[in-house]
């Protein structure tokens, strides 16, 4: 009983970590890239210059660390929880990334876009509740 409760807490904690760090990582990457400006590559030196700007940005490194945290949480939780149980959690990520974009980056989001995000979340949720294995195995 205690082991089951501990497993449940561990699962919720890692799903919380996934839905926090995934959208946060994307938001930080967005903020970092906006600080750098539009990419314009016409020759090889432009590419080298752009890559050096990207990889010396603290915000982008924070974004990459957040996405790494998301990936580690995802892999860990999949080692004991069912894919079909974990995957619908990613449906929330689309809503959270829109919220981060609105309140952290002050992006303008039209009502149609909010509706689109909600419908995408519903679609991902439905996909997540289908059976994870569809091919025959021995």
């Amino acid at each position, binding site marked *: 009983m205690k082991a089951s409760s501990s497993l449940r807490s561990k699962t919720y904690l890692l799903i919380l970590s996934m839905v926090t760090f995934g959208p946060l990582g*994307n938001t930080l*990457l967005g903020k970092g890239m906006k600080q750098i400006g539009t990419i314009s590559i016409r020759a090889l030196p432009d590419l080298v210059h752009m890559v050096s700007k990207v990889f010396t940005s603290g915000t982008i490194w924070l974004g990459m660390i957040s996405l790494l945290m998301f990936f580690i949480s995802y892999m860990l939780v999949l080692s004991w929880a069912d894919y079909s149980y974990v995957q619908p959690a990613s449906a929330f990520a689309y809503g959270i990334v829109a919220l981060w974009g609105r309140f952290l980056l002050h992006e303008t989001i039209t009502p149609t876009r909010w509706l689109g995000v909600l419908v995408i979340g519903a679609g991902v949720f439905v996909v997540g509740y289908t059976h994870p294995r569809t091919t025959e195995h021995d």
Partner: protein
Amino acid sequence: MLWEVVLLFLIVIAGTSGELCMSRAMKTIGEVKDFRPMSLLRVIARAMQVGWMWIGFLLMIVAFLALLGALSIENVSFVVPVTAISYAAGALGGKIFLGERVSSQRWAGVALVCIGVTLVIIGRN
């Protein structure tokens, strides 16, 4: 506009192809049943010997660089939801390249994702 389309296309196609290649590599290895650290390291070492894993890894890097490019010109609240179209690409790719059976419920979910992505595109500022 053309760059945006090219970058979004790269995120979806390179990202989904990368995941499909990695999935194919993992299916070659077989189901992982032992999650002890040393066993997982052995699984990773075996995975690295499969060519599909390396192709998948390279494609994922291309998708990540395209994501950075797209985020430099568009809002994160536009780019991330639009890339959900990869659920449709994944379902099609899984069916065509991996021989997976995609249930009608999963197609319904994919259809909802496509409607949502269309709404996000229509709702651009």
